[in-house]
């Protein structure tokens, strides 16, 4: 797998962050690593993109944050999905599913 990160499509990052939080609360680095892991290393999210997105999602009310201790006893800010965030994720996943199916269809047709 190429270490060169693929440019994220508009809106994809939000969905990936929400998805990464679906299994439980994570801190910023945790989210970044989890996205890397679940996309098989295709997407590496830089802090410069990650943090603005995290804060925006929190402003929207889709995530909430709290300060907690990390696995090696560092203070870190943790994020978790709110109820509206989970709903948003489902909506976005369905939409994304439709789009990717449509794109795949289009590509196969040719």
């Amino acid at each position, binding site marked *: 797998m190429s270490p060169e990160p693929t440019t994220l499509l508009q809106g994809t990052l939000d969905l990936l962050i929400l998805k990464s939080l679906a299994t439980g609360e994570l801190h*910023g*680095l945790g989210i970044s690593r989890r996205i890397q892991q679940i996309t098989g290393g295709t997407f590496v999210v830089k*802090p410069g993109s990650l943090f603005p997105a995290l804060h*925006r999602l*929190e*402003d*929207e009310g889709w995530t909430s944050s709290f300060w907690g201790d990390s696995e090696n006893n*560092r203070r*870190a*800010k943790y994020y978790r999905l709110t109820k509206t965030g989970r709903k948003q994720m489902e909506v976005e996943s369905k939409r994304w599913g439709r789009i990717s199916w449509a794109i795949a269809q289009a590509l196969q047709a040719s």
Partner: protein
Amino acid sequence: MPLLVKGRSFLRNLFLTRRVEQDLDHEVHAHLQLLIDENIRAGMPRRKAERAARMELGGTEQVKEQVREKRLGNGLHALMADCRFGLRQLRKNPGFTLTVVLTLALSVGANTAIFSLVNALLLKSLPYPHPERLGTIYARVTGARSSENPINLDGERWELLRDNVATLISALSGGTSGVNLKAGSRVQYVRNTRVSAHYFDVLALQPLLGRNFSEDEDRPHGPKTAILSYDLWRNTFGSDPGILGQAILLKGEPHTVIGVLPQDAITPSNADVYTALQPSREGAGGGSNFDVITRLREGATWQEADAKINSAWALRARRFENEYPGVHLSYYSVPLQKGETESLRPQVLALMLSAGFILLIACANLAGLTLVRMLRRASEVATRLAIGASRWQIQRQFWIENLLLALLGGAVSIAVGFLALKWLFLLLPEHFLPVASVPLDGRVMTFTLVVSVLTSVLFGMFPAFAARRVDLRSSMADRSVVRAGSVRVRQSLIAGEVALTVVLLAGSGLLIRSLIHLETLPPGFNPNGVMVAKASLDDVRYHDPANFRKLLDESTAAMRQIPGVQNAAVGLTLPYERAINDGVTISDGKEAGTQDGTDLFYVTPGYFETLQMPLLAGRTFTDADGPNAQKVAVVNHAFARKFYGGSNPIGRYINKDTLIVGEVADVSVVSGLEPVAPLMSEQAMYVPAAQVSAQFLSIVHVWVQPDWIVRTAGPVEGLTAEMQRALAKADPNLPASGFYSMKDLLARTLTTQRIEVALLGAMAALALLLSAVGIFALVANMVAQKTREIGIRMALGSSIGQVMVQVGRSGAAASLVGLVLGLALSAGALRVMRSELYGVGVYDSTTIFAVVLTLSTVTLLATALPALRIASIDPARTLREE
């Protein structure tokens, strides 16, 4: 729900900035630590781990900035930062800020004050329920001659209106006058308005206590009743709730109190006490002496009402049309507010126009000031552009600064407007305006805000456009660039404002000349050393001629006893006052049967002598001209000229049995016949007070108060008290309503002219001040910017004087162009003032000369003062500074 969360986030970001920032800082650092930990766990040495972590993070500050940009409410945050920066800029240039704020405060303040007048007089609804249903009646004459005027009603028209026009509730007011009220042992002088039944129903005013006048009480010879104002009830009757049904002694006879108006009740006259008018076709109702107000009934339209009025008065209109063939007379309703303020409308609008001039002048000044400031900031702008600010950001910064100035100036101008209104009210006599108050209400505030912001937009446009053309390289290199173009722009701005100033100066100059003309008219008598006391004889006791004569005899005799008094008399009325008008018929000779109007005076013997009116022929009155003697009259010169073609009137008969025994010189009076000027002389006849009829006495004193006059050679201190004592000797229940010198009476008559002069003069002075500031700023700025050039010139041998002239020329030239432009403009614009000018033409050389002189002096001062700074320039130092 999501909106709520968003709102909370927005507010948190906006107001808990420090907490949010701290949180972000901790988070980014924690992230860095986690990265380092991760790298160490992966086996890197500590230093390398830290370096790799930093590389991955990409700079803590940059990350934080990226988060900030995405935050909710970021736009507002930036705006607040701009505002803070703007305020800092304004604080850093206190001279500029002060000039701008003061200019705005004075110009917008003047506009605020004038607009609140416009608002109170022309815009605000009358303070009654359904003001749109309130009206008054106008007459429209078309055909051979045409006019549209409010009408007064006589008894006949009133009865026709009252009995035939059911779509309206109509009511009359018979005017307001001062009368005497005796409560307990105290006699008090109060304002009394005579109104018909339903007057308060038309205004929809319900009394606080009791009731309104009934139709029965409004019949001729009906019971005497009174309704008190709240203030009179509280101050004189101690808020006695048992006042209803009690009798008060008003005008010498008992009146039963039937009602008290509520505290906040406002009536068009705002009198202290109201009595029933009891109108009929006799007495006051024999002439057109009543004001009418109407209220349209529910469901009716004004068109219906007008049709009814015209049919009710059809016979009257036909009579008029027969008298003046070729004209058509019809009647129509006009909103009450318009009817009440019609006479003041042109003055108020002229004031608003001149206030607009002031605003334009201020705009021109401010545009010039901000333009200079902008050019001075060219290097700052260039720097900001160079380090990546967008032009929009820079523009926004300037607009925000202008807006801040506008708001600051607007706030101060409300205070200035408030003070200006206070000053205006000191100037205006009581009850001059037909409204109870001139409030600074929401509409005025909005107007002020809009005007300030609009002004800011107007003068903000210039520098904003200039900023679009800032050239990076030249601006950063040059320290002082006086662009010829910018000076020319400023010069034309100043020429424009000077032109407007000249129009205002010339206008107020003409008004001042008019006022001087009126004040210095030959009076026709000797006004010096005359003291006047007025008292109301609207009193049932003095309807009896014998009582009336006794009062005059005893009081004038007592006044002659005052030390220093040479002569005393009583007359209705005096020079400078409005005389009553009556018809006169010539009874003999070839003019027999001629009928016309004349001023009519009653006077006691000694009246002409006290006033020192020259006797042209015949004799004046003596005590022998009593009630049973031959009826006699003295006429003035204008009378003799009008009716006898200037031949001797002595020995001629008028009004059947009255013999003319004397002819006196003309005096200046307020015309009620054919007014062409506020003061003029017209035909007048004088009759002995002892020969007037009871019927005349009962009507005339309702409208006019007689004057007691004394001529004294001594000091006037204490004279009024002596006069009051003399009056009390004849009647202890007769307080004087006021004391005046002849100068006071003249001033009272010319009140409107004085107010016009004061207001327009204040406007012109303000305009002059603003123009001076503009010229001063232009020259001062030239001196500041050209310091180096001046230094070089002086080093090369120019004298200080030469350089001063060279620099000052810019201001003087602009002012000169403005002067010429302004004079040309005045020649056209001031023609509208013609009806307000007396004894002076629109093209008046004295006024023009005064305007040129004033403007030249001010221009000279405004250019010389800043140019004097040149003297302190040291050529050696300015050259070294480079």
